[in-house]
């Protein structure tokens, strides 16, 4: 078990690595999800939201 004594620690060690790998797989699969058109819509929505932030400082 990789030199580790207890099953609990061994599982924590390898599951942490697998969780990291799982995130990589998810990220690659969804790298371009949602599509450009949806992203543009979301960004415009985000801009409107930012404009209404009371802390939004306009600069010259």
């Amino acid at each position, binding site marked *: 078990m*990789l*030199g*580790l*004594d*207890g099953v*609990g*620690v061994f599982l*924590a*060690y390898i*599951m*942490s*690595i697998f*969780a*990291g790998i*799982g*995130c*990589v797989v*998810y*990220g*690659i699969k*969804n*790298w*371009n*999800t*949602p599509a450009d058109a*949806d*992203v543009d819509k*979301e*960004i415009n*929505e*985000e*801009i*409107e*939201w*930012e*404009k*209404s*932030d*009371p*802390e*939004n*400082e*306009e*600069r*010259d």
Partner: protein
Amino acid sequence: MNILLITIVTLVYLIITAFFGYLGWRHTKDATDFLLAGRKTHPFIMAVSYGSTFISTSAIIGFGGAAAVFGMGVLWLTFLNIGVGIFIAFVIFGKRTRKMGHNLDAHTFPELIGKRYNSKLLQGASGLMIFVAMPLYAGSVIIGGAQFIAQTLSISYEAALFFFVAVVAVYVIMGGLKGVLYTDAFQGVIMFISMIILLIATYWMLGGVIDSHKALTNIAPEAVKVWGKAGHEGWTTMPATGSVFWWQLISTIVLGVGIGVLAQPQLAVRFMTVKSDRELNRGVLIGGVFILMMTGVAFTVGALTNVYFLNNPAFGKISVLAADKRVDNIIPLYINSAMPVWFTALFMVTMLAAAMSTLSAQFHTMGSAFGRDFIEQGINIKTGSTILTTKVSMGFAIILSTFLAYFLPRFFEQGSAIIAIGTAIFMGLCAATFLPLYFGGLFTRRITKAGALAGFFSGLATSSFWIMFIHAKESVPLGLCKALFGVPTLAGQSSLQFVDPIVIALPVSIVVTIVVSIFTKSPDSEHLERCFSGLR
């Protein structure tokens, strides 16, 4: 010599940080422009900036030190950090938080839940709670940085604290949450490189991956000698089930922080400022790897320091004894004695980077929680300028956090993992107060205003009671229980005194939220339509 090198590297780092900050500022006229500019930004820069905000000196110095005591079982927290703190947070909570935040035009976490439940009381009370309790977490982050500087430069902790807070305060007051994309990414890259070197060097020094684990396994009797009565059975195995160490590891370190991260106000705000769901999907990739390399390395190296210190004739004892029972000094001591000077200099800027990116988000959250959510919305005092109110509140938050960073190391008994405890208390409190109503607010239409308020206050009351009167780790140094009832904890000799507040307060809060919601009137459908617009 060493100090000169470290000073030069630190100055170069600060100059580069300032340059990136200026670059970001010059290229964007305002927040709208910043977002438009961000469209052209490489996804790598976007994604790495996330990671550096999540991970701080608390995780590396504080929990790395805790791993030197508890052993590699702390890696369960890494698993939760990735599985819950990244995957569930981004994919499940992040996307809905972003959308609902936009639907309700909410700009802070208290504002989001306040508007979701149509309750100024909830917004004000949660703003106040964040302002009062978050300094505990920010203070812990500061302790981590100051401890490392004190050890490295051989100066007093107080002097290191002053220097560290001064640098961070200038950065935070000049910067803010927006426009820090490049600096965050720059800081993230430094942290990543530094931790990879630390992992490889440690494994190489101790004879390879498996051999170093075996060496740690073989010195288990040393751990049993010191903590055997409390349930420690070695650094590569879990503590005895139900023992003091088991409860501390599982309930405080792993659950408290692993679950609590879901209801972190500064993280929820981060979701709302993400440009699109695509950034969240991409963030999962970078975030997962980044957290693995940060906490995974810190916890593994933290535990392995025991082999180094025990086998090194200059010390000849396990980590906690080598560091004079100061758990939070274990990682700094290891870096300074085991690693070459150039790495110590690199690690110095790594700690600054880790603290600066996290503290800027924390201080901004505390400032807006007090200024906007409590003062302006909660108790309805109109101020001339929201920005000024937030900045003044931020100033108070910095002072309060620094005071705690000064005071906390004197508060807990010797041998305590102060940074880890401080972080865990805050995260546990967030989970008990916010998680049921936050989750319920995002995913169901049935949780009512009364249910949310009852859940919030029952979670807050249960946590506070448990901290003050039951959980010995805090009730003993606080002394309130002793003064009122003549005993250090109301739990007597039972194991309850080791059970973390989150184990009791979170279920109480969940049950109260659900039960009160069942017996109170549903919110009006028009409001719900607005909240859930575009959400299934």
